[in-house]
C-alpha cells in the first residue's frame, strides 16, 4: 500500500492519452465565441432557476408573516397560499403578554362585547340597522356580561315570527361583527400591553439597539466596496453612525410613543436614554484611547514619522462599531425579564444563551486548539485520539444523563438558561479541529522568536497568536453564536414544559407542530422572520470568515 500513496496525483499528471485531434481544435476555435455565449446563457438560466428555487420559500415565509392570523378562518387550514392583504397582526401578537390565539379566535362574544363593537362602528350599525335592531330586541332582558350572542342568535333562529331572509341576514351580519369584535379585542389587548408592560426603559434600548445594529451591519456590507483606508470612508462612517444614533433617539422619544397614541415623551425618557448613550460614549472613548495611546505617542517622537492628528486616532477605531453593537446586546440580554410576552422572553433567552456561549465557547475552543497546536506535552496525542473516538458517539446518547446532572445542579426547567449555556460550553473543547488547523499554519518561528524576546507562553498566546488568528476567532464566535439559535433538542429537553425558559426554536416549534390547529402558523412565520433577519444579516456580514473557516476545515479535516 505504501508505495501507492502518491498514485492519485500521478494520475492527474501523467494521463494524457485523450488528447484532442488537431482538426477538431481548429473548428472549435472558430466557433468558440458563439459556443461560449451559448454555454454562458445556459449557465445563467440554471443559476436563475436555482435562485428562484432557493429564495421562494423565504419569500413565501415573509408574505405569510404579513397575513393576519385573525383572518385565517380559525386557522384550520394554516399553510395556504398567501393572499393579498397586509397586516402587522402577527408581529403585534408576538409582543402581547399571555397571548394565546384561542382567545381571539373563539367564535362567541358576550352581549356586552357584541354591542360595544356595534356601537363603536357607525357604518356597521347603519348598514345593518334592521338586523341590529332584531338582535337588540331579542337580547332584551338578558344579562349582557354573561349571556352570549350565540344563544341570542339561536333564539332568533327559532323565532318563527321573523322571515327567513331576515334571519339569514342577521346571521351574516353577526359573522361580520364577530370578525370586527375579534379585531377590536386584539387591538385593545395590544394597546394595553404595549402601553403597560411592554415598554419599560430597557426595552426601548432593545428596540433602538436592534435597529442600530442592523443599520450598522447593513452599512458595513454597503461600504465594503469602498477603499478601507480612505479618510472619506471613515468620515462617512462616523457621520452615518452619529446620524443613526440621533435618529434612533429622536425616533423613539418623539415619534413611536406618540404615534401609538399614548402619553407623550416625558423628561424621564430623555434622561434614561441620555445616561445610556453617555455610558457608551465613555466606554468607547476609554477603550479606543487605551488602544491607541502607546503607539501614537511614541511614533510621534520618531524622526520622519508624521505627527498623529486626532483624526488619525479616530479613523483607527473601527472597534467603535463593534463596541456599540456589543454593548447594546449585552445590556439587552442582561435586562430582559421574564415578565414579557412569551416570544420576547424566548428571544431574550436565546440571545442570552447565544452571547454567553459565544464568549465562553470561543475561549475554550481557542485554548484547546492553541494547546494542541503549539504546546508539546505528555498526553497530547492521547487527548486527540480520545476526542476522535468520543466524536463517533451520537450526541443525544448522553441527553438523559446530562438532564439529571443539570437537574442536580438546579439547572433544568426554570434554570434552563444557565443549564443550556453549561451544556453548550462544557464539551465545546472537542470542536478544536478547524481552529487548530488554522493555528498550524501560523509559522512556529513567531512563537520561538517571541519566547526568545522574553515572552511567556501565555504572552505569546495573547500578544502574538491571538491578533494573527483574527479570522478564526471571528469564525469561532460566529459559529458559537449561531448554534444556540437553532438548537431544539437539548433546549426542549432541559426546559421541558417550562414555557418562560424556552428558546425561540422550541417555542416556535411548539407553535407549528403542537398547536398549529389553533392558527399559530402565521405567527410562526412572523417569529421566524424576526429571528432570521438579524442572524442572516450577521452571517452575511461575516460571510468571508465563515467561508475561510469552512474551506480550511474541509481541506484539512
Amino acid at each position, binding site marked *: 500500500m505504501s508505495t501507492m500513496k502518491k498514485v492519485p496525483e500521478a494520475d492527474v499528471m501523467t494521463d494524457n492519452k485523450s488528447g484532442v485531434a488537431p482538426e477538431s481544435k481548429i473548428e472549435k476555435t472558430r466557433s468558440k465565441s458563439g459556443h461560449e455565449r451559448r454555454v454562458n446563457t445556459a449557465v445563467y438560466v440554471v443559476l436563475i432557476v436555482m435562485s428562484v428555487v432557493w429564495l421562494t420559500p423565504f419569500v413565501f415565509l415573509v408574505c405569510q408573516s404579513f397575513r393576519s392570523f385573525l383572518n385565517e378562518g380559525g386557522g384550520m387550514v394554516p399553510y395556504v397560499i398567501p393572499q393579498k392583504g397586509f397586516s402587522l397582526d402577527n408581529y403585534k401578537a408576538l409582543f402581547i403578554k399571555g397571548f394565546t390565539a384561542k382567545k381571539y379566535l373563539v367564535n362567541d362574544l358576550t352581549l356586552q362585547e357584541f354591542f360595544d363593537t356595534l356601537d363603536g362602528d357607525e357604518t356597521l350599525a347603519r348598514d345593518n340597522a334592521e338586523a341590529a335592531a332584531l338582535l337588540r330586541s331579542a337580547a332584551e332582558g338578558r344579562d349582557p356580561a354573561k349571556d352570549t350572542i350565540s344563544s341570542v342568535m339561536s333564539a332568533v333562529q327559532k323565532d318563527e315570527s321573523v322571515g327567513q331572509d331576515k334571519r339569514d341576514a342577521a346571521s351574516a351580519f353577526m359573522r361580520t361583527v364577530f370578525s370586527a369584535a375579534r379585531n377590536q379585542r386584539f387591538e385593545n389587548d395590544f394597546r394595553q400591553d404595549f402601553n403597560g408592560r411592554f415598554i419599560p426603559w430597557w426595552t426601548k434600548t432593545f428596540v433602538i439597539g436592534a435597529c442600530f445594529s442592523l443599520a450598522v451591519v447593513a452599512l458595513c456590507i454597503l461600504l465594503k466596496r469602498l477603499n478601507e483606508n480612505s479618510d472619506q470612508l471613515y468620515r462617512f462612517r462616523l457621520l452615518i453612525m452619529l446620524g443613526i444614533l440621533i435618529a434612533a433617539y429622536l425616533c423613539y422619544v418623539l415619534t413611536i410613543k406618540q404615534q401609538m397614541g399614548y402619553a407623550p415623551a416625558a423628561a424621564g425618557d430623555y434622561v434614561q436614554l441620555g445616561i445610556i448613550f453617555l455610558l457608551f460614549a465613555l466606554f468607547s472613548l476609554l477603550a479606543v484611547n487605551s488602544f491607541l495611546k502607546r503607539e501614537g505617542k511614541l511614533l510621534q517622537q520618531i524622526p520622519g514619522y508624521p505627527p498623529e492628528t486626532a483624526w488619525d486616532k479616530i479613523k483607527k477605531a473601527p472597534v467603535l462599531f463593534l463596541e456599540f453593537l456589543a454593548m447594546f446586546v449585552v445590556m439587552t440580554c442582561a435586562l430582559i425579564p421574564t415578565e414579557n410576552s412569551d416570544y420576547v422572553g424566548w428571544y431574550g433567552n436565546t440571545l442570552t444563551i447565544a452571547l454567553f456561549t459565544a464568549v465562553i465557547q470561543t475561549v475554550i475552543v481557542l485554548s484547546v486548539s492553541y494547546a494542541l497546536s503549539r504546546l508539546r506535552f505528555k498526553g497530547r496525542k492521547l487527548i486527540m485520539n480520545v476526542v476522535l473516538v468520543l466524536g463517533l458517539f451520537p450526541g443525544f446518547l448522553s441527553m438523559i444523563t446530562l438532564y439529571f446532572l443539570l437537574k442536580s445542579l438546579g439547572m433544568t426547567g426554570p434554570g434552563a438558561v444557565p443549564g443550556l449555556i453549561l451544556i453548550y460550553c462544557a464539551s465545546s473543547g472537542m470542536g478544536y479541529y478547524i481552529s487548530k488547523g488554522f493555528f498550524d499554519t501560523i509559522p512556529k518561528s513567531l512563537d520561538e522568536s517571541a*519566547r526568545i524576546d522574553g515572552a511567556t507562553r501565555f504572552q505569546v498566546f495573547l500578544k502574538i497568536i491571538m491578533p494573527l488568528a483574527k479570522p478564526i476567532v471571528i469564525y469561532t464566535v460566529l459559529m458559537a453564536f449561531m448554534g444556540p439559535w437553532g438548537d431544539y433538542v437539548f433546549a426542549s429537553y432541559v426546559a421541558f414544559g417550562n414555557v418562560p425558559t424556552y428558546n425561540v426554536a422550541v417555542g416556535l416549534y411548539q407553535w407549528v407542530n403542537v398547536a398549529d390547529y389553533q392558527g399559530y402558523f402565521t405567527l410562526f412565520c412572523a417569529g421566524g422572520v424576526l429571528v432570521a433577519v438579524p442572524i442572516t444579516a450577521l452571517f452575511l456580514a461575516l460571510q468571508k470568515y465563515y467561508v475561510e473557516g469552512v474551506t480550511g476545515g474541509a481541506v484539512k479535516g
Partner: protein
Amino acid sequence: MASVTLEHVKKVYDNKVTAVHDFNLEIKDKEFVVFVGPSGCGKSTTLRMIAGLEDISGGTLKIGDRVVNDVEPKDRDIAMVFQNYALYPHITVYENMAFSLRLRHMSNEEVHKRVCQAAEILGITEYLGRKPKALSGGQRQRVAIGRAIVRDPAVFLMDEPLSNLDAKLRNQMRAEIILLRKRVDTTFIYVNHDQTEAMTLGDRIVIMKDGYIQQVGTPQEVFDTPVNLFVAGFIGSPQMNFLKAKLIKGADGYSVSLLGASIPLNRDQNEALAGKKIGSQDIILGVRPEHTTVLFGQNTNAIECTINVNEMMGSELHLHLTSQNQDRIIVRLPTVDLTAEQRANLNYGSKLYITFPAKVMHLFDPESEKNLIWG
C-alpha cells in the same frame, strides 16, 4: 559578552533519531562562529539547543559560567534572527523592535532610545511606522536584526538569515553583517549551509555532517588542511577534484601515481606519512580546481584529459575534463594569460594536459575518508 561552552551535548528526538552526537565546542567571548554543513546535519538543532528552543538530551551547555540546560530561552540573554525573519505581522516595525524591551518592563523613554538607535544603525528609521508586510526582503532582514540588537544580548544567534534573499542582496547583507559585527561587539553564532558565506563571515567555522562535528577551525585552516573527504569537498567552489590514485612508498620517499603520472611528495608530507607508518595503498587524491596547472602541449609527467564542458565565467574559465578512467576533473583557468589561439582550442573533445605540485595535493584514505596527513 559571554562565552558559550558545549560539552558532550547531544540531541535525541522522541522517535529515537539522534540529531546531534557528542558536540564539544568552546566559543570564546566576542567570537564569530559559523556552523556550516548540508541540510539535516544538525547545525540548526545545535543552534536551537543553545537558544533553548529544543531540549538538550545530554551534556551541558554553558553561557558564560552559567549552566543553562534547563533555563527558559527568555532568561538566557540571547537574541536570535530566524531564517524567515519571524517578524510579528500585526504590529509595526517599531513595536516589533520594542517588543522584547516592553516585556522586560523598560521605561518608554529607554525603549524609544534603543529602538531609534538600532534603527539608525540599520538605516530603517523611515520604516518604523510600517508593518512588516509593507517592507522588502532586505528591509525585513534588517528589522529582524534590529529586533535582536536592541536587546544588547550576550549571544547573538542567526539561523540562516540570508537564505531567503536573492543573490545580489545576499552579498550586500553579508557585507553589512560584517560591519554590524564591528559595531555590536558580541558573541555571534551563525548557522548556514553556504560555505562562501561561512568563509567570509566566520572567525571560526564548525563543519558538521550527520550530527557530528567534522572540523573546527579558521576559514584558512579548513580550506588548507581539510581533515577528511567531506570537509575537503564541502569547502571551496568549485568543488575539489577527487581522483582515484595510488600512494607508492619508494626508497626515496612517497609518491602518488595516477593516470600514468607519478608525483613525488614533498618533505613535510613524507615526514607526516612516515610518522604514521603508512605503506603503499590506494588513495583518493584531492586537488582544488584552482591549484591545477594546464599545459597545452604534450608533457611526460602530466595527465591527459579531454574537454567535456567549457564554462566561461568572465575572469576565468571552468573546464570540465574527463580523464582516461572517466574521473571528472574541473580546472580553473584565468583568462588573462590565454592567447587567442589557446582559447580557440578549448573546445569540446580537444585534449589538454594538467599537472599539479605536491604541496596542493590532499591524500585521503578511501576507507575511512580521512586525510592521511592531517586527519
